[in-house]
């Protein structure tokens, strides 16, 4: 394609018409928000997967008055296929009861129940009714507390959060496109005379649109890089705040260990963050092409 001036020069005076200040800053703000929303979506997805896959399959089996009865229950648990069982020791049971009984539960001479933490395999695990009946036969009065119902609600909540975060990313992309369109139209208005002159001299619509799109793409890319650079420290800070809640899936960041900082965020987020500048540039290019070509269509 023919160019209006040598490569790198400013054919239509776009460096002044499309300033390198406002548009990159607006794009940086949009990308910053998109990075936060994306991180939220990934975190919600991770929590949902964790709850769905692990925590939701967790059962708590309590055997009151455990003398002699706990062993019978343990035998049932051992011989039921699709179960992974662990009996909590006395100290762990005391820890569980500390909110109600305080530090000295052992001194109260209470007959504490035996507690089993049981994981069920969703495929090979037993049916709930049969399982409960087997335990009841082994030790009448045994309580089975299922976390599944609660975790199903949490999974639904996480799904809602994920959808909201994804919607936020889409909205940010739309607002970003609108910002680019407004900037491109302002540039068109500022360079109307120049465009009409080169159009009259035989410049094609593609030629003019590519000059605008090239400039906007560059500004959007640089602005997005700035936005990602602003978002990473904030995301690491948030990761360190939420580390206790996600200790099972992610490492808590240590300030003096870059490797630990890297591990503080989900790998998927590290993979997607570099895509933000590329996406911003692509949105800038497509939006500007459409805006400029639509405007040029009014010319004869």
């Amino acid at each position, binding site marked *: 394609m*023919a*160019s*209006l*001036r*040598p490569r790198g*020069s*400013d054919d*239509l*005076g776009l460096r*002044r018409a499309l300033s390198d200040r406002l548009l990159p800053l607006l794009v940086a703000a949009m990308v910053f928000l998109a990075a936060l929303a994306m991180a939220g979506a990934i975190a919600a997805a991770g929590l949902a997967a964790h709850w769905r896959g692990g925590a939701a399959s967790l059962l708590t089996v309590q055997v009151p008055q455990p003398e002699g009865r706990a062993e019978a229950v343990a035998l049932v648990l051992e011989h039921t296929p699709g179960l992974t069982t662990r009996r909590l020791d006395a100290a762990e049971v005391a820890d569980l009861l500390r909110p109600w009984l305080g530090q000295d539960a052992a001194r109260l001479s209470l007959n504490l129940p035996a507690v089993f933490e049981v994981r069920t395999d969703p495929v090979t695990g037993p049916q709930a009714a049969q399982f409960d009946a087997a335990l009841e036969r082994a030790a009448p009065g045994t309580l089975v507390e299922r976390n599944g119902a609660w975790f199903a609600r949490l999974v639904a909540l996480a799904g809602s959060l994920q959808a909201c975060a994804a919607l936020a990313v889409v909205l940010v992309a739309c607002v970003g496109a609108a910002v680019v369109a407004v900037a491109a139209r302002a540039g068109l208005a500022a360079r109307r*005379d*120049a465009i*009409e*002159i*080169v*159009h*009259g*001299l*035989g*410049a*094609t*619509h593609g*030629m003019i649109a590519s000059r605008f799109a090239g400039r906007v793409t560059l500004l959007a890319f640089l602005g997005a890089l700035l936005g990602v650079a602003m978002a990473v420290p904030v995301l690491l800070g948030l990761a360190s705040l939420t580390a206790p809640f996600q200790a099972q899936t992610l490492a808590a960041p240590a300030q003096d260990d870059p490797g630990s900082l890297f591990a503080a965020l989900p790998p998927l987020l590290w993979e997607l963050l570099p895509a933000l500048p590329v996406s911003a540039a692509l949105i800038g290019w497509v939006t500007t092409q459409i805006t400029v070509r639509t405007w040029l269509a009014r010319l*004869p």
Partner: protein
Amino acid sequence: MVRLDGVGLRYNNGPLVLEDLNFALAPGAFRWLLGPSGAGKTSLLRLLTLSVRPTTGRLSLLGVPIEQARRRDLPPLRRQIGMVFQDFRLLPHLSAFDNVALPLRLAGRPEGQLRVDVGEMLRWVGLMRRAEARPAELSGGEQQRVAIARAVIGRPALLLADEPTGNLDDAQAIRLMQLLAELNRLGTTVVVATHNDSLVARHPGRALRLHEGRLTEETAVSVTGLATPGRRATDRIA
């Protein structure tokens, strides 16, 4: 080359500014375009530069019927048409050199070859030393010479000029008319709109005369500057 059959033009929903124009220009023809202010000269030139399309009638430029032309056919056509605007229409952020080079760059001419041609053209219009000056740094006459250089640098098949000598002194005006005559002799079709009677008198040729948007007559203008309706004269400028 150029053919108008019943061409009319209106802007938006306004009145017709050009009405029922019928004329044809053969390749290598020269025409003065005469008429009082508001007669429609600039509108006719806008039609011939494809800045507007006719509202009615049929316009054919360089053998291409405009009403049937697709949008993508027009840019190559525009590159074969040179235009000297009354208000110069230079790009203010470009130097004189880059303004003159624009048509060649649009045509995809290699940069090395282009520099020689533009330098030669700037030398011809006496602006070699002002090649890097921007339009705002040039006088009206210098800007007009840049506009002329830009219009002719691509050796257009059709050259249109709207009051091209308005800001030139006599010597420069004479040089410009010599250039137009030379291009015309080499086969370029030339249409020059002017109010300058003495210029027309010095360079007799055929003229299109507009009045209130209508072509009143096509005349031959003699060396005395008097119009002679209907007289057959040479198709080229003297």
